[in-house]
């Protein structure tokens, strides 16, 4: 049984730019997949096609048996509630408190009036508080988000995704704006969520070493095409070079140091 199936997806911007060029792969429930590649390779576009923040030009995406490209209105919203998304820049409403931002994850389940008024049930609030507890944000619950550190903001982002009760998490460069120690906390958290809650995780990463360390499976993308799809240990230096092009030199050097250590 697959949870996600991406089938010959093509995404063009205008007539010239091809962001995704015939991309196909499938993901099993509970997998931890890292999508690596240089900036501009189409990683972000790929994630956004899965929850339809971007429309595909052609091809099919099936999530939990449902074909995504044709979804509209309420069905599309229902599809999105099943997938949590985590962003590089956290994408929080900075002026609101942590708990309010977390509860935003429930808006997909609300009707129009509840959504406008921001009415949440006690059960939803209890869930939100519990998730904040597990992520170690209890003390920050009523703080405004602009008073948090980057790592804390990203944990709020994760909490907002978890409160959706998603089947899958899409993480778009979740650690690209963080310092190394916060980045480790975030990646550990994602791994933990994947292992203990059984949620499928798809994470875009720029850093190969992080991908190799955490992922069970690597998908390497360059110029909108999948170059590599397989286990981390099978990824050769030549393939990394193929994925990253001229950027690869330093990355491979870093890796050697890492393996030496």
């Amino acid at each position, binding site marked *: 049984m697959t949870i996600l199936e991406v089938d010959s997806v093509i995404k063009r911007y205008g007539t010239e730019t091809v962001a995704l060029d015939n991309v196909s792969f499938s993901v099993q429930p509970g997998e931890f997949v890292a999508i690596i590649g240089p900036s501009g390779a189409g990683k972000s576009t790929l994630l956004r096609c899965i929850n339809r923040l971007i429309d595909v030009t052609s091809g099919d995406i099936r999530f939990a048996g449902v074909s995504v490209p044709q979804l509209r209105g309420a069905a599309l919203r229902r599809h999105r509630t099943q997938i949590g998304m985590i962003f590089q820049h956290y994408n929080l409403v900075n*002026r609101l408190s942590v708990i309010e931002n977390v509860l935003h994850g429930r808006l997909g389940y609300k009707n129009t009036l509840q959504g406008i008024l921001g009415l949440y049930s006690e059960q939803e609030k209890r869930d939100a508080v519990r998730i904040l507890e597990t992520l170690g944000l209890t003390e920050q619950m009523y703080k405004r988000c602009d008073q948090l550190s980057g790592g804390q903001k990203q944990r709020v982002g994760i909490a907002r995704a978890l409160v959706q009760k998603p089947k899958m998490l899409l993480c778009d460069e979740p650690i690209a704006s963080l310092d190394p120690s916060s980045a480790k906390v975030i990646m550990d958290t994602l791994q933990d969520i994947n292992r203990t809650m059984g949620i499928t995780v798809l994470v875009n990463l720029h850093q190969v070493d992080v991908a190799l360390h955490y992922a069970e499976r690597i998908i390497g993308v360059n110029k909108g095409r999948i170059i590599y799809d397989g286990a981390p240990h099978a990824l050769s230096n030549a393939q990394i070079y193929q994925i990253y092009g001229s950027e690869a030199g330093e990355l491979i050097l870093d890796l050697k140091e890492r393996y030496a250590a």
Partner: protein
Amino acid sequence: MQPEAFFRRRRLQSLLFLLIITALTYGGILMTQFDVTQGLMAIPRAFSWAIANFIPDERAWSRLPRILEKLQETVLMAVASSSIASVFGLGLALLGANTTRPHPWFSLPARALASVFRNIDVSVWALILLFSFGQSGFTGFFALFFVTLGFITRVMVETIDEVSTDSVEALRATGAGYTAIISQSVIPACLPQLISWVLYMIETNIRSATLVGILTGTGIGFLFDLYFKNFSYGSASLVVLLTVAVVLIIETVSNYVRRVIL
């Protein structure tokens, strides 16, 4: 580039700039038939006259209740038109901003409409509206309303795209509907900015309302015009002093509110 050449070019540029400004100014003086010596003489003359005559006298103080009443009318008109216009302006901005427009086709008409509203001066709106509303408070109200609507739309389109693009994306990803996204993310993020602009427009509109009042015979502008044309300079001066006091008080309150909420 040689240093001498560099400095020569710099000097030439400055000189050219000054020359153009001087020429334009001279042209302006010719066009408006502005008499420079008279203009310079008018300033000391006006102030020495003011020291002798432009001081509230006893008659002025006896008119205080009426002045305050008209002042209140003007302030309320500024507040009401600014507040209502900002609600509509926010609506128009939601249609016009790239982040929140329901469809790309909404954007241009919304922005164009706002541009027409703000680029026609408040006095011109008043002159047009006089045909429908006559010498009533509505003429001023709608004139201020239109200009404020255009202005608020412009600044809020920028604000919305600046502060809420990311969070709107996140909420769309959770499956939230359009109205929920607007009310839970865009409005909370933009509200302090909106309030700040409304307060600014109130300050501006009190001055504009004074002007429009002269055209429409309402509010404090009308009263000033009346006293002034009847040579009741003492009363006119009291009008000015009270207007200044009210504007300064509102400015102070606004600055306080801005400092706290932004």
